[in-house]
């Protein structure tokens, strides 16, 4: 932490003069300002849209919005009385399973990679492991659908090992879908997340390992007594991020891999809001569901951050 303390007392300049001095800075800021207002803040009018009965009358979104009838919490009530439980079950199930797959493995991968002495082998494994991160969900979904199809590789392996005596139709059983999404999510971020832990490991002082060597520690002892404890702050931050995003189970993957026969299991908050809000034209309803999600997510992030601040000041995100 480097904090500079200005000692020289500068003459106080007027705000106008400082603005003129910074005119080029504001010029550089202008595109971003236009962007953030149009792309980020204008859609927050959805806060209001969720409480009215929005019907497009052709006068433009904002004019129509101002003229829409106020209905209070009706859309939220409607959601809670109808599909809330199913959608939340799917969202949370997918999310927790995703956490299960995408949390421990990158840590373990980083620890294993750190133990590899050959730089070339290490690089090869690393390069392979973050390949999935860089391909589109369209292709990833294609891979999963191919491999999990009735005559796909996975079924061939399961049959060959005698683990099943009939092909499993993975995309026909609702609860399987949660697992498929979780595995797909975990597969995609494995190598990418491992880099973050690897970075943290490389920041651990070598003197600790050397001291442990002198004491005759085994490698496993060093992993458990030095590496993992040193990773704790990083793990906490990653956990905070994961908890903050617990309602973000993905979107493209659900749309690309899901099908109508398992909609009762594949539908999560995002896809549900999309389906009703845009596909079925129930704009206000879709907005209300989206707003519910945004608010809960926001509270989760803030809460998680506060908790981590209590643990350790340096671990908080902001």
């Amino acid at each position: 932490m480097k904090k500079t303390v200005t000692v020289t007392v500068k003459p106080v300049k007027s705000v106008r003069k400082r603005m003129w001095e910074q005119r080029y800075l504001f010029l550089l800021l202008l595109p971003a300002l236009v962007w953030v207002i149009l792309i980020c803040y204008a859609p927050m009018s959805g806060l209001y849209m969720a409480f009215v009965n929005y019907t497009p009358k052709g006068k433009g979104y904002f004019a129509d919005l101002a003229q829409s009838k106020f209905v209070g919490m009706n859309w939220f009530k409607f959601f809670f009385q109808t599909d809330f439980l199913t959608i939340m079950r799917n969202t949370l199930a997918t999310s927790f399973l995703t956490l299960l797959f995408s949390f421990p493995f990158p840590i373990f991968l980083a620890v294993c990679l750190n133990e590899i002495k050959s730089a070339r082998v290490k690089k090869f494994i690393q390069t392979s492991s973050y390949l999935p991160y860089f391909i589109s969900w369209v292709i990833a979904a294609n891979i999963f659908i191919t491999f999990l199809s009735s005559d796909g590789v996975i079924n061939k392996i399961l049959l060959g090992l005698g683990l099943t005596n009939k092909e499993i139709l993975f995309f026909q059983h609702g609860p399987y879908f949660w697992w498929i999404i979780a595995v797909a999510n975990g597969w995609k971020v494995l190598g990418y997340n491992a880099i973050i832990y690897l970075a943290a490991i490389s920041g651990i002082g070598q003197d600790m390992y050397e001291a442990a060597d002198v004491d005759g520690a085994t490698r496993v002892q060093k992993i458990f007594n030095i590496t993992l404890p040193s990773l704790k702050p990083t793990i906490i931050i990653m956990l905070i991020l994961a908890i903050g995003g617990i309602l973000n189970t993905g979107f493209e993957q659900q749309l690309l891999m899901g099908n109508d026969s398992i909609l009762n299991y594949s539908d999560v908050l995002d896809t549900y809001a999309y389906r009703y809000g845009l596909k079925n034209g129930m704009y206000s309803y879709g907005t209300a569901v989206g707003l519910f999600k945004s608010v809960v997510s926001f509270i989760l992030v803030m809460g998680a951050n506060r908790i981590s601040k209590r643990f350790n000041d340096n671990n908080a995100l902001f």
Partner: protein
Amino acid sequence: MRDIKIKKQYAPSDRIFDIIAFIFLALVVIMCVYPFWNIFIISINDATDAIRGGIYFLPRKLSIASYEDILTRSTFLHSILVTVLRTGLGTPLAVLATTALAYVLSRQELLCKKPITLLFIFTMYFGGGLVPYYMVLKNLNMLDHFIVFIFPNLISVYNMILVRNYIEGMPQELFESSKIDGANDLIIFTKIILPLCKPIIMTIALFVAIMHWNSWFDAYLYTNSQSLKVMQSVLVEILNQYQTTAANQAANRAGQSVTPDSIRMAATMVATIPIIMVYPFIQKYFVKGIMLGAVKS
């Protein structure tokens, strides 16, 4: 430094760890590489022969008919053009806008620095949701225009923070002395920031380019016209057309050199190969970038 360690007796726990680690790493490599390999070999195998199945590690009968078929389809070629255009145009613009914002927010003297920064950071945690967003784009007349690919993706606040941290890590005297030499912020930005931030700019450029190359959802939602179809959308269409074995066998009986399946594999490869080719070369940049992201301020 650690490889000059004195050889010592392996502890049994280390042996077990080695075995588990080996199995785990082998599985990781297989899971991350094999799917691509499998699709690749099927895509270069003769289509009717491939229906028999059993192609796991090497192609049985080479044929590039599927690639010929798909690369002569005008819809697919056009979609590649749209994708290349959006990537080629969207990436430099996004990098420029994001870096400019990062530079501005890195200046200590900026008026209202805190509230302006907060204005941007807040959007990482709260948004209006999909439906109002769609409505705003509609109101801005961006739907079904090429601009819908470029403008909404102009800035990523996350990338901005990466660049800002990078700039803040540079010696600040650099900017002060250029100011004294009479350079204004525009000159500092173009002449000092852009060249000196090359590593981090490469990193975010890679991320943005891959985002553009891979994006399907925004095209799916916000465009309708055939002329704006991106590659991933056409890919989805090809994937959806795939009607399992029935269509394949029909093609087989008709004696065609391609099947829905082989087209699917070839199209997947066409979309994937550029990424596989490009990323080993730039990976040193993005590993650095992710690490910068991890060591946030």
